[in-house]
């Protein structure tokens, strides 16, 4: 069975990608050995007033070095604190957590919206076969270049400053992109749109969800999402995002 760990790991690299967006590499052989794209780490703050972990997706996995990359946006005080850490500092993490994306060899479209983009990078690297990559931004376009080696990249920006003016679905339509399978991570309205798009066209979708978490391992039932069928574990129509997810098939869940 896959294992997860809670430990102090060292920050081996840290850069700012954009206004309020940071990239950070942390080193830990054990955690890295288990990590899969779509999984996440729980990050613990040092300040005693912040007790709950911050879930951050795994953006890249370097098995050679035993390092993981995390890319995060400063959204509040916890990520603000973390953005102040330096190379060489250590940070308490738990992980890898969650299921991760199932890797299927099909003609796929990878879709990332905003801070949902980072987990698509390792997925793009690992997924075999032909892939189109669609990235939706508000304005700034962090990580864009790093996707170029792995597929054709299409951009949507809200203000139209780059690529399609609009959202990721607008970009898919504008470019006439087709796929047998859609992977997506991003804000809920975007995921809702993709879920509907998949249902309409009979295309399978894998959606990575977000919810506020406390335990991160399935014990507290904070992070549930409604499901169409009764969930095997909870015995009711909702499921634990941190444990059964964060990646779900679009057919299973109600957004």
């Amino acid at each position, binding site marked *: 069975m896959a294992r997860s760990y809670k430990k102090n790991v060292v920050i081996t690299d840290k850069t700012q990608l954009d206004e309020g967006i940071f990239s950070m590499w942390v080193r830990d052989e054990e955690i890295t050995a288990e990590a899969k794209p779509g999984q996440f780490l729980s990050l613990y703050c040092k300040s005693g007033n912040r*007790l709950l972990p911050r879930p951050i997706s795994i953006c890249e996995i370097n098995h050679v070095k035993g390092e993981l990359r995390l890319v995060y946006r400063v959204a509040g005080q*916890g990520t603000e604190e973390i953005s102040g850490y330096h190379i060489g500092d250590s940070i308490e993490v738990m992980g890898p957590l969650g299921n991760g994306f199932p890797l299927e060899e099909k003609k796929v479209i990878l879709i990332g919206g905003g801070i949902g983009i980072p987990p698509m990078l390792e997925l793009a690297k690992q997924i075999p076969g032909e892939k189109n990559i669609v990235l939706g931004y508000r304005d700034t376009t962090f990580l864009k270049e790093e996707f170029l080696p792995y597929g054709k990249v299409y951009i949507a920006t809200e203000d139209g400053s780059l690529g399609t003016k609009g959202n990721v679905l607008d970009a898919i339509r504008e470019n006439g992109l087709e796929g047998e399978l859609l992977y997506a991570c991003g804000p809920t309205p975007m995921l809702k749109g993709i879920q509907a798009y998949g249902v309409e066209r009979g295309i399978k979708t894998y959606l990575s969800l977000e919810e506020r978490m406390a335990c991160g391992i399935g014990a*507290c039932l904070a992070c549930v999402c409604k499901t169409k069928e009764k969930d095997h574990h909870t015995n009711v129509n909702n499921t634990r995002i941190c444990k059964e997810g964060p990646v779900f098939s679009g057919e299973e869940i109600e957004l």
Partner: protein
Amino acid sequence: MNTKVNIAGIEWQNPVTTASGTFGSGIEYSDYVDLNKLGAVTTKGVSSIPWTGNQTPRIAETYGGMLNAIGLQNPGVDVFMKRDLPFLKKYTSKIIVNVCGKTTEDYCEVVEKLGDSSVDMLEINISCPNVKEGGIAFGQNPCSVEAITKEIKKYAHQPVIMKLSPNVTDIAETAKAAEAGGADAVSLINTLTGMKIDIHKRKFVLANKTGGLSGPAIKPVAVRMVNQVANAIKLPIIGMGGIMTWEDALEFLMAGATAVAVGTANFNNPRATLEVIQGIEEYMKKNNIDDILEIIGCVNQ
């Protein structure tokens, strides 16, 4: 050195359990914690039929604590008995099942079903602030505390722990009512009702508007209430509310609790329970305390 405590006839190997709702049924945490080391495992609330719980967001972080409004989501007592209980039976620690319900009958139904099971103790949650019916409504009025305790005792085969709400003017009154109703022990505190507002969205953070405040922020209130109840009734007390460290746990024991439960701390540190147990043992060794009973309630002498 003795760390065993006896609560209503049930002997725990040490005075540390998990706070209901923060440890699932132990399965998830068993990757991080050797459950055999715990005095007891207390499960998430179990009701007669499956409960879906509240809408999300269900939790919010607060300064030194958190709010939760899970709303007692649980798979129901039948699934619990078929799946979770056999898992827990594999371990030597005692099993405490937290019971919730919307009506007195609900509670009694669960208690009755668990009667012949391997459950060691029952903890009756009459203090959940996050459900519309049942929960806290039972726990804020001494008369109804006494009445529901009496009813449950009719059906219970195991010792009954009544879990008290801190959202009352005088917790000694509800504790006395539980004692009068025939409870075998009390546990306290459940969460304090709280609220958080998202100033950017200008909306409540929790879908349920209010939630229960837990974590180290509330510890001083919890220690006070444990001490107050220890001076008011004769029943053993399981103390909880903000225990993060062994020092915190010792405060509760010294205030008069016979055992303690670790809750929110698990989210910050999955091994919190074990560290508490180890810290208590080391404290006892260092201070030449042969029996944990020497500590319990020592500030009251």
